[in-house]
């Protein structure tokens, strides 16, 4: 079986973000990029699935973006993914555009099982998996914390308020990964060395367009600085008074 894992290249969550001059994009200067953390769970699950099947299954990583995404694809190859595909785009697409590009490639590759993170931590739309499945007419189980494959049958667990939901589906299917699905492996030193010999196919994404347009990015308003009421026990009464009368939280 061919298993696809879709990965995105996102700013490190610890990076300080600045807005570019056009006011619509982030300024990439000085930003460290990483593989989207939820996609790491997806990579791990794809690799575990391949290992469990123990047959000649292969795992293909697909990423939509530009040359920089190759770093992220290499990370997946170092973890054990067999090959990579970079779908190049000229300008940033919205979720629908990305879903269309991914769907086209998944179809071309003939992948019946697809893993991806439940969301990318850059724009957090949490919708690419579902859209891709709709375009392909695949099943989709989102925000998955447990995955089992038995022949054509899939059983997944999803976290819901106060419990778990068990969902069944059949291949072809797209699974979006939630934290807790697994513990992603480290890229081993051997894996990193052998990733050099694996191929990353580069091609242009299918003609795509976005349904939505980003009009502007804005930073959140600066937080008001905190107030120090005092440093000894006499401040407690004042704190209680303010919590009651000013903040009205107790």
């Amino acid at each position, binding site marked *: 079986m061919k298993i696809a894992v879709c990965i995105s290249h996102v700013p490190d969550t*610890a990076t300080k973000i600045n807005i570019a001059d056009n006011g619509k994009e982030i300024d990439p200067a000085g930003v*460290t990029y990483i593989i989207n953390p939820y996609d790491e769970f997806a990579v791990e699950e794809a690799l575990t699935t391949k290992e469990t099947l123990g047959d000649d299954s292969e795992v293909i990583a697909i990423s939509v973006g530009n040359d920089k995404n190759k*770093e992220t694809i*290499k*990370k997946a190859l*170092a973890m054990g993914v067999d090959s990579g595909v970079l779908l190049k785009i000229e300008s940033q697409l919205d979720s629908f555009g990305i879903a269309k590009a991914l769907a086209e490639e998944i179809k071309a590759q003939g992948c019946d099982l697809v893993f991806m993170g439940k969301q990318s931590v850059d724009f957090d739309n949490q919708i690419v998996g579902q859209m891709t499945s709709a375009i392909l007419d695949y099943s989709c189980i989102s925000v998955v914390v447990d995955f089992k494959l038995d022949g054509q049958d899939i059983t997944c667990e999803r976290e819901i308020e106060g419990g778990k939901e068990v969902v069944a589906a059949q291949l072809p299917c797209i699974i979006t990964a939630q934290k807790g699905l697994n513990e992603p492996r*480290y*890229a*081993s*030193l*051997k*894996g*990193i*060395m052998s*990733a*050099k010999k694996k191929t990353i196919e580069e091609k242009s994404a299918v003609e795509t367009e976005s349904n939505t347009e980003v009009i502007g990015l804005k930073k959140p308003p600066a937080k008001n600085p905190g107030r120090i009421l005092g440093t000894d026990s006499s401040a407690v009464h004042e704190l209680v008074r303010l919590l009651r009368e000013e903040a009205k939280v107790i």
Partner: protein
Amino acid sequence: MDNFKGVDYFNTESLLTQEEIMIRDTVRIFVSKQVLPLIEEHYSKGKFPMHLIPQMAEIGLLGPNLPEEYGCAGLNNVAYGLMMQELERGDSGIRSFASVQGSLVMYPIFTFGSEEQKNKWLPLLSKGEKIGCFGLTEPNHGSNPGGMETKAVKVDGGYLLNGTKMWITNGSIADIAIVWGKLKGKVMGFIVEKEFKGFSAPEIRGKHSLRASITSELIFDDVFVPDENILPKTTGLKNPLMCLNQARYGIAWGVVGAMLTCYETALNYAKSRIQFEKPIAAFQMTQEKLVYFLTEITKSQLLNIQMGRMKDNGTLKFAQVSLAKRNNCEKALEIARMSREILGANGISNEYPIMRHSANLESVKTYEGTHEMHTLIVGEDITGYSAFL
């Protein structure tokens, strides 16, 4: 998890390949996730975190610069050095474990062993299924290993080994020891297995340094070593010194990891510690120290990368490794001690890693050739006069 991003004032990362950066980052994350949360507890209890061995093996940290045919990763020397740097950011004891297994056990088997020995031991050692140690230093022979008293005598089917080795990292947890002893006056290497009768490896207690690492004595009392366990390509004292040279190379890189964490800790502390109504980072005397740390870190980083490139292209002399080991260990210890000063009383607490690194570096400055011996090695190289032989 700490979110260490490295210290790189002169963009030395631009001198690295993408694979080298990935390897560094993999080990960095491993240290942040697996080593740092538990190291203080192990250090204070005087225990080596044994459960890390399979994890280190799985990532490929044991003998990674040896070829793939023996189950190793085939790294170049810069990547190997970066790995050591990241491990020692965690703790010198963790780096020592990897140094001994790779440079002092797997390297001599790879270099001086028979094909049978390589095929038998290297895959087991790289998987962490067997642990090794290296026995050269003796109670009465440290800087002058040529004076060793450990002796082997040829007997039917093998050798009888007698002697004592001292300050042996991993000794009590080792399945095999690479032991150096004199056979008819010539230094030869032997693979001694822990089951061999007459061999014991009691742990040395009461250390104030490298407490998260096992250090032992090795005692050989009429130990019979079969013929197939002599390292057949050993020819003399220069062989164990070649092993030490490998380990010194790793140490020169490793201690930069200790420098980085001391510097980062001192810098963050100085920016948040308020005295006289301002952060102590605003005082000139603190800035002088911090700038000194950064300067020495930068020099060591550049030296290491160049040393690694020279090792990869086969032009590195052992005296150059001595210079790097000597300089980097001394500067790391100095940075650890001066970082402690910036943290004041807090510097001695295990809430911060500094005192642990400072105590560790006392050993690191001494083992694999003391500071003084490396001075004399470089001294001999540039003057042509040996001051010790």
